[in-house]
């Protein structure tokens, strides 16, 4: 009887998505419980119906963190990001292991609780945080863990484990019902609620041709806010060049760079602005398909956002002939991700949208020529789209009044780490880093990571070194880790570009042991594995760093790391190319930390220790070998 019920659900789900392989991610999300219960049978039906081999199905399942794991009735995903580590994640982890009586990355014997590590979940300002069955639990302590596990063991629904309505703003909206805090600390032109929602769609748009919309965005010099800084107007213009029956606007809400959480706040408090931005982009480019790619970590926002979309459809702000403009047909659906940092790369995101592994594509062709299902596709960041609406409403001249030089307007910073007031700060481009630090109450600062792990560490000492300058030409980071001497540098595309992640480390932190190792593990975990370089090398480099930290390093090891880092530049995407940056940039700027650990008088150290190598033998034969050469 039960199997028939299960089968019915599988067939219904497949039918709902028209047996369409390109909706595999949705199908797998819906059949998650069935797959966990009876993997083989479900796989068999799915592969038959979708006409793929079972191995092909596993190919997708095994790529995504949240498909691969989650075998318990309650699944606890504890964030591994560096800010969690700084806030005693280790104690919380041990508490979970103690109370659940199972180590991490396993399921309890009764199948009730699964414990898993997971990459940054976008809660850096309220760490340590975990996701339990889709709900976010922030500011965890060992005591709170005990409470949670007790609740779970008495089979309480996950909602009852939360403190009721404890989040601020829309977080306490019944459709969100989350204990997350927005922590908006500073508002400026984007975050100011001085704009009646949908004004542009309802009014301004009718006075403008699509061409004029693009012109306005171009003349505002708006650049992509995800980190790369590609001119948005130009992207829109490219998006209408190739003839096609359909065009696609994708909003990239796969905010995965550790330390960034601004998109989460925008989607919680300003969803109208984001969706309106998508519609404006659709009008400008003649697009009819709209997709918001939402990272799975933000699942708790799905219901809330979907309701917004339904409201928009009901008032003809989405749908056919929007606002009476003939031929302006555009709709938006939300696609959930499934846990893969690399899907933030636009072509990987498109692959994932098509129901495949999120492996980046080779360019050309660029998505604006050939993207989602082969249609010209524009992928914009959440913040970019929200900003575009304000520009269209208040005008590019107004917008150009803010910011500096090549970086106009404002930027949302996600600030976390060692400071008094972590949270979201909207600042004008051109602000000094030192001022940012004062703003958030950071003291005794040793280093700042600007732009997340794919950024870079920069310091005075080594920039004067010719060898480093020579090497610098290899590295074009999206951000950097900055040493104190550089706190006068300015946040801008020409000086310190950033997607908004600012992580602060004070002088009590061990940059190499705590920070760099954490970042390297992140890249190793999140590599898609397609390129031979990014698949293998970060792992080897991390081992080499570990060798140095173990006290077995020699000067040659530092030189090796520098020259090996170059090889990663042959990787396809930004992740692969940046995967060595934590090590490379820390060598550039904090080389003395490495030199402190190495054996300066030794030229070669293979890390081989004979006593250690023969311990098992010695134990077995009850005697120690005579090591003549050591006498």
């Amino acid at each position, binding site marked *: 009887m039960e199997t028939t019920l299960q089968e019915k659900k599988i067939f219904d789900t497949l039918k709902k998505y028209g047996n369409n392989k390109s909706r595999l991610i949705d199908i797998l999300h819906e059949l998650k419980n069935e797959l966990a219960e009876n993997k083989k049978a479900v796989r068999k039906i799915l592969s038959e119906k979708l006409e793929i081999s*079972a*191995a092909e199905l596993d190919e997708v399942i095994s790529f995504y963190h949240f498909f691969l794991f989650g075998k318990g009735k309650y699944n606890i995903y504890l964030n591994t990001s560096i800010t969690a580590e700084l806030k005693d994640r280790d104690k919380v982890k041990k508490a979970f292991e103690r109370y659940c009586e199972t180590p991490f990355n396993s399921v309890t014997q009764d199948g009730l609780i699964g414990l898993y590590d997971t990459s940054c979940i976008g809660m850096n300002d309220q760490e340590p945080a975990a996701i339990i069955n889709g709900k976010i639990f922030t500011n965890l302590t060992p005591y709170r863990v005990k409470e949670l596990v007790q609740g779970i063991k008495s089979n309480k629904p996950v909602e009852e484990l939360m403190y009721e309505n404890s989040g601020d703003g829309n977080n306490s909206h019944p459709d969100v019902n989350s204990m997350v805090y927005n922590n908006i600390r500073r508002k400026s032109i984007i975050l100011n609620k001085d704009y009646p929602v949908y004004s542009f769609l309802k009014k301004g748009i009718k006075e403008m041709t699509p061409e004029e919309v693009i012109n306005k965005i171009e003349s505002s010099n708006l650049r992509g806010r995800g980190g790369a800084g590609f001119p948005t107007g130009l992207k829109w213009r490219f998006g209408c060049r190739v003839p096609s029956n359909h065009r696609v606007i994708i909003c990239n809400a796969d905010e995965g760079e550790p330390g960034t959480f601004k998109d989460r706040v925008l989607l919680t408090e300003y969803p109208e602005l984001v969706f309106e931005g998508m519609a404006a982009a659709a009008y400008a480019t003649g697009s009819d398909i709209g997709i918001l790619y939402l990272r799975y970590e933000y699942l708790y926002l799905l219901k809330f956002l979907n309701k917004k979309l339904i409201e928009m459809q009901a008032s003809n702000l989405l749908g056919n002939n929007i606002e009476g403009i003939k031929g302006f047909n555009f709709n938006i659906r939300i696609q959930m991700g499934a846990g893969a940092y690399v899907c933030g790369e636009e072509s990987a995101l498109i692959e994932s949208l098509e129901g495949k592994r999120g492996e980046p594509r080779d360019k*050309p062709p660029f998505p604006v020529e050939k993207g989602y299902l082969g249609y010209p596709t524009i992928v914009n960041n959440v913040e970019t789209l929200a900003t575009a609406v304000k520009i269209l409403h208040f005008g590019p001249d107004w917008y150009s009044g803010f910011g500096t030089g090549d970086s106009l307007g404002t930027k949302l910073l996600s600030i976390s780490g060692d400071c008094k007031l972590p949270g979201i700060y909207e600042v004008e481009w051109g602000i000094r880093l030192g001022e940012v630090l004062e703003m958030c109450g950071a003291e005794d600062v040793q280093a700042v990571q600007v732009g997340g792990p794919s950024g870079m560490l920069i310091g005075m000492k080594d920039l004067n070194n010719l060898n480093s300058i020579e090497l610098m030409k290899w590295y074009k980071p999206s951000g950097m880790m900055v040493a104190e001497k550089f706190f006068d540098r300015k946040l801008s595309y020409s000086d310190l570009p950033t997607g908004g992640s600012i992580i602060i480390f004070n002088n009590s932190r061990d940059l190499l042991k705590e920070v760099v190792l954490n970042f390297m593990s992140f890249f190793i975990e999140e*590599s898609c594995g397609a390129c*031979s370089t990014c*698949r293998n090398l970060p792992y080897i480099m991390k081992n080499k760093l570990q060798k140095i930290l173990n006290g077995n390093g020699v000067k040659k090891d530092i030189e090796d790391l520098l020259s090996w880092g170059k090889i990663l530049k042959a990787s396809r995407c930004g992740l692969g190319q940046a995967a060595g940056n934590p090590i490379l940039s820390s060598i550039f700027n904090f080389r003395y930390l490495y030199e402190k650990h190495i054996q300066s008088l030794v030229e070669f150290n293979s890390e081989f220790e004979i006593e250690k190598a023969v311990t098992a033998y010695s134990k077995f034969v009850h005697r120690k070998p005579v090591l003549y050469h050591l006498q």
Partner: protein
Amino acid sequence: MEKEIKIWIDGTEITTSKNKTILEAAKENNIYIPTLCYFVNTEPKANCRICTIMINNRMLTACTTPVADGMEIQNNTEELTDLRKSIIELLFVSGNHFCPTCEKSGNCELQALAYKYKMLVPRFPYEFPHKQMIGKGSKILKDQNRCIACKRCIKTIKDKKGRRYFATKYRGYKLEIVPDEEMIKTISEETAQQAMDNCPVGSIIKKEIGFNMPIGTRKFDKTPIGK
């Protein structure tokens, strides 16, 4: 007739036509660019990165980048040769490649490239990872020790319905190329042979024909790769 365009590879002028990749244009003109994951008549995926060339100081892969008029391509520079050699070394240390006992020795492209780039001891430490052999009850053996994840088998070995015999599993350094458990049990002689032939290394081996062709008489024993 397609429009003729001119490109330069290491200063040599080549006349070719649009819609070709750099690799194809080079091949037609007998200029060697090394490849591993590339397989003729299939969509290039640039997984191995060994065909990396440079244009305007930017690294691109020759197998995926289309030619454009006036392109100046660097191919045989010291820098790129070292990069290619390092990729070969990387593949050697991340698997367990022991040529003397490998059925593919002499027919192996990885081995041939290692000779070409004069690899002696890899610059990276050997990892000696623990890997599996898969293929119980099948005509083929998939030896993960030797797999370089080029994905040629994924692209080329399919059944009549277009379902793939091989697929990727996991990601990052845990990534593996695995056969479909059920499908390889019924793989035909012909497909098994094709899978083995398309594999650039000794990761897919057809059983019961080992060493039919004596070592010393194999493909790269006679002519080194790239000659």
